[in-house]
């Protein structure tokens, strides 16, 4: 009976040895390759640092003008532009300008990185069912595994700093764009593709002429989700040394500063809403062709 109540687990000594072996193996791996990886990510780090410095060093009216311009280009909506400008004025007025610029820098770079890696991955996934079966569980893991768990190996490999933070953000934020690129391409009407085939389109012509353009609304929904998820990682990323709005939030948690936490938290929310509205409006405008009058 004893054996049914007590689960027959691995004995302690062996378990400890196993964990030790894994830890030791990874430590050796990071000693061996850590520097190589750091060198590999060096250009990314430089770009991120440069971009952040540029945002912080630029006069604030210029930044606000650029923000307003980008919001207009994306959304063509006066409300969205006015909302963006007001939000940034408030952020500056409450003394969060520099942190916001840092956050803006890392979010922008993370989003670009996710797009650059995620869209090709999504295309690959749409190309064959086998690929989809292989990649889907990886995406599931990336989305559900607690962020702290993958922070451990990332920090072991690359130490504390911007690049590990960026990687942590990307691990969490990349799945939606991969998924929605794959979905968008798979949802392209069979008739449209068959017509392309019948006229002798090759793989590239089908991909760039038919599948991607028709999948764009979905791909944009993916970009939008990726930005949102990247923003939600800001606080966790600040735990491993990424500057930005997450740092004061972290400080306010440990010291119970309600106002500080609230203000910085709301600043993150403001950024999220601005990004969301601008990218959604942009996505809608891409679908102009669907709004035709139906003559029946």
């Amino acid at each position, binding site marked *: 009976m004893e054996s049914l109540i007590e689960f027959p687990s691995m004995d302690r000594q062996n378990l400890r040895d196993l964990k030790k072996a894994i830890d030791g193996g990874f430590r050796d791996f990071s000693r061996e390759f850590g520097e190589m990886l750091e060198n590999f990510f060096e250009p990314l780090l430089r770009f991120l640092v440069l971009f952040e410095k540029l945002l912080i060093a630029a006069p604030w009216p210029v930044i606000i003008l650029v923000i307003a311009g980008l919001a207009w280009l994306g959304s063509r909506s006066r409300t969205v532009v006015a909302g963006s400008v007001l939000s940034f004025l408030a952020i500056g007025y409450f003394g969060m300008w520099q942190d916001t610029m840092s956050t803006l820098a890392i979010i922008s770079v993370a989003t670009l990185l996710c797009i650059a890696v995620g869209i090709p991955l999504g295309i690959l996934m749409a190309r064959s069912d086998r690929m989809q079966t292989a990649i889907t569980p990886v995406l599931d893991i990336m989305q559900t595994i607690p962020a702290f768990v993958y922070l451990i190996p990332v920090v072991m490999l690359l130490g504390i700093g911007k690049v590990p933070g960026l990687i942590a953000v990307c691990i969490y934020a990349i799945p939606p764009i991969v998924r929605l690129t794959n979905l968008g391409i798979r949802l392209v009407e069979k008739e*449209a593709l068959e017509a392309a085939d*019948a*006229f002798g389109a090759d793989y590239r012509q089908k991909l760039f002429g038919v599948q991607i353009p*028709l999948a764009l609304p979905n791909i944009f929904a993916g970009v939008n989700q990726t930005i949102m998820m990247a923003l939600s990682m800001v606080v966790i990323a600040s735990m491993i040394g990424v500057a930005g709005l997450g740092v004061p939030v972290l400080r306010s948690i440990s010291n119970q500063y309600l106002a500080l936490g609230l203000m910085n938290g709301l600043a993150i929310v403001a950024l999220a809403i601005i990004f969301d509205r601008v990218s959604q409006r942009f996505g809608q405008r891409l679908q102009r*062709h669907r709004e*035709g009058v139906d*003559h*029946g």
Partner: protein
Amino acid sequence: MAETKISIEKLYKIFGPRPQSVLAAVQQGMSKQELLEEHDHVLGLKDINIEVSAREISVIMGLSGSGKSTLIRHINRLIEPTSGRIMVNGRDVLAMTREELIEVRRHSISMVFQRFGLHVHKTVAENAAYGLAIQGMPIGEAKQQSRKWLDRVGLSGFENHYPSQLSGGMQQRVGLARALATDADILLMDEPFSALDPLIRTDMQQVLLGLQEELHKTIVFITHDLDEALRLGDSIAILRDGALIQQGNPQDIILHPADDYIFDFVKDINRGRVIEARSVMTPGEGIDGPSVAHNLVLDEALQAVSAAGTDRAKVVDGEGKAIGSISLKQIIDAMARPAEESEQEARYR
């Protein structure tokens, strides 16, 4: 006879996980039902043999599920056959490499689809230019070249509209312009007018006939509508359950239906508007009296003969030479709707 442009020999298509494993059984005559119940495979096409003549409209007719859309997709190999041979312009389509097949699709065969198959994110002009753009032509030039086809199908002024802004009939005109723009001499049309309103459909049939008079393309036209088949077809092939059951010219099919199935199809059509004088005349020397053209339909022949106040007329060919005679009785007999067990039908049973 006209030269053969496309020939299909002993074509079989079986859908399922392992079609080759049941091919032999099907070739030995296993029925569709048996195949489905015992082997879980679906019989798509069975022993199809067709020759399509150049510069004619060949109609393939059948109800839904008869395999007609599957058949037409074998000609440009959008669907791979299970076994058989498909020759287009004297070349074996199934022996072609990927690249050769793409060349053929770009230059020799174009296609029009039942649900149009337009690209909704492109303008009308870009859609019409699609085939040329795929060939590698710069888009500006492609648009310019395809423009005359848009004009020809009556869409001038709509170049910058999107397909969703057009009616079904107009969208199919875009589909037609796109297919014509590549100058391919074979045109595959998969129920192109079935999704359209009856009036628009008749309209489009006229457009097609007008174009064909000028262009003399080799057209394979799929339809489930006998009236459409009779109006357009130089020859008609009838497909049922994946097998061809009759091939011939429209006159033949109406006057000599091969079995009950086809008889059911043809019994309700307006025979006076389809059957031509030559099909019911008594061949031989002409007689004195009014003359009717050999390809005059019976409705009009009846009017001509009765207007002349006689009961017989001579039938003349295109050059006015008499090739036979026709009587009022012959005309009326042929126009009458055949009885369920007519002598004619029994003869061809």
